[in-house]
């Protein structure tokens, strides 16, 4: 049937060109995120791996092997410069591990308490408190670690054991980063624990289990992979955490696993280097991009693994 024979009500096709235009604009908004990712990758690669033009990229001056295996990080221009990422990596991992030791038990405990024990009223109070804790800026935690946790809690406590603690130390930085990511673990784990079906709990109670048996022997094991995903996400967040570590952790790139000394993480090096006054295309400046790639790749990998685990977990219970 041709358009001419359409009855009036069906043929008065209103011009909806502006709707098409709106759709295109909205699509561009959504596509901007892809552009952002592309830009991040291009910027990092374009300065670290291969730079077009006269500028020399970081890895055109330092070998990948030296970068990955070198145990000295001394980002200065000229022959004295040493670019081994191990010290920064060890600092980062140390802070993230300390943060996990703090956040995993407390976050998981909070998640279990809120999903299995707390009354709805109590939960209504606790949830916003955790949200506030998560909303406090990183600088504040850094300041708290440097001016309060280190001098008034850690120093006296370690002093009793006869241990000496630096003003800047990985321990206090790790502790506050742990406090920061606790709400993340708590809320993600709580979601995961809640998605364990009621029937499983009821079956366990019917077999004469105590609450502990149900929580620790039935619910948590059933939710384990989801909790692991939450933990990984928090770990990656801890790796990327910056200001708290910059303020409390110090700026000494030493390959050590002693948390009582200062340590430099990848992020705190980046802040440190960008506040220095080396020239824009000097190798010390370009090293920021190399560290940026390392940070990006590490966090992305952990996030992808976490997302993959979480998807598989959801498939089990849906």
């Amino acid at each position, binding site marked *: 049937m041709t358009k001419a024979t359409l009855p009036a009500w069906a043929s008065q096709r209103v011009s909806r060109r502006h709707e098409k235009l709106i759709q295109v604009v909205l699509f561009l908004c959504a596509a901007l995120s892809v552009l952002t990712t592309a830009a991040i990758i291009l910027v990092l690669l374009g300065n670290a791996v291969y730079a077009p033009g006269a500028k020399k990229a970081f890895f055109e001056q330092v070998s990948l092997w030296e970068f990955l295996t070198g145990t000295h990080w001394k980002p200065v221009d000229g022959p004295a410069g040493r670019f081994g990422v191990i010290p920064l990596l060890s600092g980062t991992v140390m802070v993230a591990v300390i943060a996990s030791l703090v956040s995993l038990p407390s976050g998981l405990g909070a998640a279990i308490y809120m999903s299995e024990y707390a009354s709805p009223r109590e939960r209504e109070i606790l949830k916003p*408190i955790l949200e506030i804790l998560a*909303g406090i800026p990183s600088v504040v935690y850094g300041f*708290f670690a*440097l001016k*309060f946790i280190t001098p008034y809690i850690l120093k006296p406590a370690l002093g009793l054991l006869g241990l000496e603690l630096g003003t800047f130390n990985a321990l206090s930085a790790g502790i506050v980063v742990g406090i920061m990511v606790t709400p993340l673990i708590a809320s993600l784990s709580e979601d995961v624990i809640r998605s364990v079906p009621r029937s499983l709990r009821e079956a366990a109670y019917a077999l004469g289990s105590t609450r502990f*048996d149900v929580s620790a022997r039935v619910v948590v094991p059933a939710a384990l992979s989801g909790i692991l995903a939450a933990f990984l996400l928090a770990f990656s967040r801890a790796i990327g955490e*910056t200001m708290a570590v910059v303020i409390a952790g110090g700026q000494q790139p030493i390959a050590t696993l002693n948390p009582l000394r200062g340590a430099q993480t990848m992020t705190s090096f980046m802040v440190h280097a960008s506040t220095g006054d080396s020239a824009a295309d000097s190798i010390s400046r370009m090293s920021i991009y190399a560290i*940026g790639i390392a940070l990006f790749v590490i966090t992305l990998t952990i996030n992808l693994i976490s997302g993959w685990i979480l998807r598989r977990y959801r498939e089990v219970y849906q």
Partner: protein
Amino acid sequence: MSGQNAPEKPATSFISGADQLIRRRLLLSRVFAWVCRLATYSALAVLVVLLVAIVYSSIGRLAPDFVTNTNSTNPAKAGILAGLWGSFWLILFTALFSVPVGVGSAVYLEEIAKDTFLIRIIKVNLANLAGVPSIVYGILGYTVFRTSAAALAVLFDGKHVIGVLGLFKVRLSKLPIYEDNVLVGALTLTLVILPTVIAASQEALRSVPSSIRVASLALGATRWQTIWRQVIPAALPGISTGVILSTSRAIGEAAPLIMLGALTYTSMCPGSIDSPVELLTKPTQVLHAPLDQFTAMPIEIYDWSKQPDSRFTQVASSGIVVLLVVLLSINSVAMIVRHYASRRLRW
């Protein structure tokens, strides 16, 4: 058993015949509950300790003149005014950029897009962007936005820039464009919070029941009319709560701004505007502010906490108090919106 008068347990009862084992299990259960409760309430304790410690150490500097003074090398005079104004301009522009783009993306992904390969890529990509450390956005901002701003500054150097604002033209003569300006910072922060803004808006849109959409379409509304007249109004409280909360996150961000080369020590407010009245009385300055250099509250706090002079500890604490008060008031606005909206709208 404690009391001497306790009756002899009948050996046959299956409950009180309860052996040590059951009692131990119940004890374990109770201990476990207390451990979990302790873990939860220790979060509250940390929050209280943190707030008390910071308020306590701010005593000595926290006074009205702390918010009316700009920074100074003298800790008794140092104030946060420049940071307050810097944060104000940053958030203003960050919100201006991120709200339309973020809500637009969410509307596209939730209401318009079909489940194609490209859309799935966009969704996976958004989830991953949310996990990128904010400092990486700082590198991006430094390399892309700051460099572009520098190029623009060269382009306009020495020439007269004509800014058109509404109906009147303002001559911005000899106003330099800085490469580390407010807009560069706001664009970077926009990228940082965009994934969160999108996710929050998507969630709000998802909570609108689909019956509303179907009913609207059945009445002969187009897809866009349905979105604009029904879905967005219904999702608005949720969207605004989510947007406010994610934007407020940008107020506390320091790392990407430091990467950009934001000023750590300055006594100048952007556009030299240092009181709200001047927003109205100095239109030229208002136009200049986005292109001016800036600092922000978290950056000043960082700078103060690095100072060896211990009196700056008071200054940093005072700065934190101001920052937290600003954050808390913004968050309570979000809570109020959520509270009233949940009362008004019931499905």
